[in-house]
C-alpha cells in the first residue's frame, strides 16, 4: 500500500500545528485571543495604542512647544485664529497651524498633542489608586465579616450616596485646586465600586473547597488572600477598571473645566476648553479639537472594556 506522497507531506507539515493547537489553554491566553476577536475591543485597542504613541512621541509630532506663544516667535497671529493648513489651500506665506491658535496665541495642535501626556496617564493613576485601596477595603470586609464588614461597607454606601462629581468637587475644595488633588478626589470617589466588586468575589470564593483545602494545609490569611482569592477576583476588577478609566478621564476633565484640576499653562484637554470658552462663538475649533481628543480616549477605553467583558463572559463564548 503506497501512501500518496502529498498526504504524507500534509501530515508532517501539519504536525507542529496540531501540537500548537493542543497546547494546554490558559485563562490569560484564551482571554487575549477572545479580546482580539472582539471587533469593539480591537477598535478600542487601536485607538488607545495610537493615542499612547502620540503621547510618547509628542515632542517629535508637535511643531512647537505647547506653552510657547507665537508672540515669542515674533510671528503675527490672531487670538483664536482658525486652522491654517497649506495642503488645504491656506496661503503659503501664512504660518501653518493645523488646529489654529488658542486665546494665548499658542499652537492648538501642539497643545492637543501634549495634552495626551496628561490625560491618558491620569486615567490609569486614578483607577489604579481606586483599585488598590478598594481591593484592600473589599478584601478586609469580605474576609473579616461581622461588624468590621458592616462598618466598612456602610462607609462605602455613604460615599456612593453623593453624586460623584459633587463629592469630588467638595474634596478638591478641601485639598486645594490642582491636578494631583483632582486625581486623588476622583480616585477616592471611585473606591466603593472596586471595594464592592472585591468583597463580592471574596465572599463567593471564601467558602470554596480549594480555599478550605489551602487553609487546612496551614496557609496564612494573607497567603489565602493573595494566592487563592485575589486571582479569582481579578477578572471583574480588570473589566470594571478598564471601563472606569474612561469615566475617570471624563471626571478629571470636568474638574479641570471648572478650574479645580489642571492649572494653566500646562496643556490638558479639560482646562484648554475652559480657558478658551469665551472665544467659543468666534473660534469653535478651540473647543472641538480638545473635546474630540477627550471623547476619543474615553471611547477607546470603553470599547476595550466592553470587549474584555464580553471576552471573559463564558455565556458569550461559543
Amino acid at each position, binding site marked *: 500500500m503506497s501512501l500518496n506522497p502529498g498526504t504524507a507531506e500534509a501530515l508532517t507539515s501539519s504536525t507542529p500545528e496540531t501540537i500548537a493547537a493542543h497546547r494546554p489553554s490558559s485563562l490569560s491566553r484564551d482571554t487575549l485571543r477572545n479580546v482580539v476577536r472582539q471587533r469593539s475591543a480591537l477598535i478600542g485597542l487601536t485607538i488607545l495604542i495610537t493615542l499612547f504613541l502620540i503621547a510618547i512621541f509628542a515632542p517629535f509630532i508637535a511643531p512647537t512647544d505647547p506653552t510657547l506663544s507665537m508672540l515669542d516667535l515674533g510671528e503675527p497671529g490672531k487670538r483664536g485664529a482658525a486652522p491654517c493648513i497649506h495642503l488645504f489651500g491656506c496661503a503659503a506665506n501664512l504660518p501653518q497651524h493645523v488646529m489654529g491658535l488658542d486665546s494665548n496665541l499658542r499652537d492648538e495642535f501642539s497643545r492637543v498633542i501634549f495634552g495626551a501626556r496628561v490625560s491618558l496617564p491620569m486615567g490609569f493613576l486614578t483607577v489604579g489608586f481606586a483599585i488598590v485601596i478598594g481591593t484592600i477595603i473589599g478584601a478586609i470586609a469580605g474576609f473579616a465579616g461581622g461588624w468590621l464588614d458592616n462598618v466598612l461597607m*456602610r*462607609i462605602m*454606601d*455613604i460615599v456612593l*450616596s*453623593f*453624586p*460623584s*462629581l*459633587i463629592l469630588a*468637587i*467638595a*474634596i478638591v*475644595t*478641601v485639598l*486645594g485646586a490642582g491636578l494631583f488633588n483632582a486625581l486623588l478626589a476622583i480616585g477616592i470617589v471611585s473606591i466603593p465600586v472596586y471595594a464592592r466588586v472585591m468583597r463580592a468575589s471574596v465572599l463567593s470564593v471564601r467558602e470554596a473547597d480549594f480555599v478550605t483545602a489551602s487553609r487546612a494545609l496551614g496557609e496564612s490569611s494573607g497567603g489565602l488572600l493573595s494566592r487563592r482569592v485575589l486571582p479569582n477576583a481579578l477578572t471583574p476588577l480588570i473589566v470594571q477598571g478598564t471601563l472606569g478609566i*474612561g469615566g475617570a478621564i*471624563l471626571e478629571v*476633565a*470636568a474638574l479641570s*473645566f*471648572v478650574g479645580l484640576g489642571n492649572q494653566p499653562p500646562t496643556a490638558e484637554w*479639560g482646562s484648554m*476648553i475652559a480657558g478658551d*470658552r469665551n472665544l*467659543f*462663538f468666534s473660534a*469653535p475649533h478651540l*473647543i*472641538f479639537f480638545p*473635546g474630540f481628543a*477627550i*471623547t*476619543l480616549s*474615553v*471611547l477607546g477605553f*470603553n*470599547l476595550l472594556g466592553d470587549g474584555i467583558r464580553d471576552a471573559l463572559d463564558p455565556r458569550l463564548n461559543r
Partner: protein
Amino acid sequence: MIRFIVRRLLSSIPVLIGIVILVFILVRVIPGEPCTAAFGEKATPTVCAAFSTRYGLDKPLPEQFVIYAGSLVQGDFGSSIRYGRPVADILLERLPVTVELTILALLFASTVGITLGLISATRRNSPVDAGTMVIANLGVSTPVFVLGLFLAFVFAVLLKGTPLSLPPSGRLSPGLSVVPLAQVWGLTGLTGPLRSLIDFVSNMYVINGLLTLNFGLLTDALRHLILPAVAVGTIPLAIIARMTRSSLLEVLGLDYVRTARAKGLKERSVVIRHGMRNALLPVVTVIGLSLGGFLSGAVLTETIFNLTGMGKTLFESIQGRDYIVIQGVTVVVAFIYLVVNLIVDVSYAFLDPRIRLS
C-alpha cells in the same frame, strides 16, 4: 412588601447620618477663613470675632455639630454667610431649576434611550443597530461640557434666525416675567410648609406656565431648558439604550418568549407585552443609578447655560467659602439621591417578586 420597604428605610438611616457627619467635617476642613472670604479687605479681628459669634463658629466643633444637626431636623439650614438669607429660602428658589432640568433630562434620556434600545434589539446586527450603538458609544464618551457648548454653538449661532434656533443661556427671554402662584391664587397671606410648597412649584417655570395656562411662559421656559436637558441627558441616554438592548436580547432568547411566539402572538405583542416588561427591570435600576450622573451633569450644565440652580449655587458658595450654603446644598442633594434610590429599590421589588420574597 411593607416589610421590605420598612427594612430598606431603616437601613438608609445610618447612611443619612453618615452623610450629615461627612458633609459637616468636609465643610469645616475647607482651607480659608469664611470671615476673610465674606468681608475681604474689611476682615479685621473685631469684625471676624463678631462674625464667628454670630454664626456660632467660635463654639467647639462637637457643639457646632449638635446645633447644626438639631436645626436640620427642624428643617432649618441656617443662614447664608454671603447673602445673609436663610439657606432654606435659597434652596426654595434654586432647587426647582435643577429639579426641572433633571426631570426633563430624565424624560429625554429614558424615552429616547429605551426606544433606541428597542429598535436596536429587534433589528439586531442591522445597519440601524450598528448606527445606534455607535452613537450610544460616542454619547457615553463625550464630556457633558463639550456637548453643552456644542449644542449652544449649533442652535444659538449656526441656526440663529431659523425656527430651530434655541436660546443658549438663562431661564426666560428678556421681557418675560413670572407671577408667583401664591399671588395668582390670592394666597399671599399663607405661611408655613404649604406656602413653601407652593413657592417651590411656582419656581418651576414650566409647571407654573402650565398651571396658570400662560402658554407664552410655558414655551419660553421649555425652549430655554431643551439644550441643557439634552446635554445632561445624553450620557444616561446612551447607557439606557445599551442596557435596554442587551437586556431585551437576553429576554427574547428565553423559553417563555418562544412559547409566546409558538402560540401565534404577533411579533409586536411578543416584544412589547412579554419581552419589554421583563427587560425593563434592569433598565429601571440603571435609570435610578444614573441620577447621580444627572446631578453631576447639572453642575457643569448650569454653569455653561447660566441657570441659577443647585449646581451653580454649590459652585459659587464653594468659591465664596459659604459653609452654611455648601452644607445645605450637599445634604439636600445627597438626601434626594438617597430617596430616589430608595424609590428605585422599592419599585424594583414591586416589579420583580423574586426580590421582595428573598
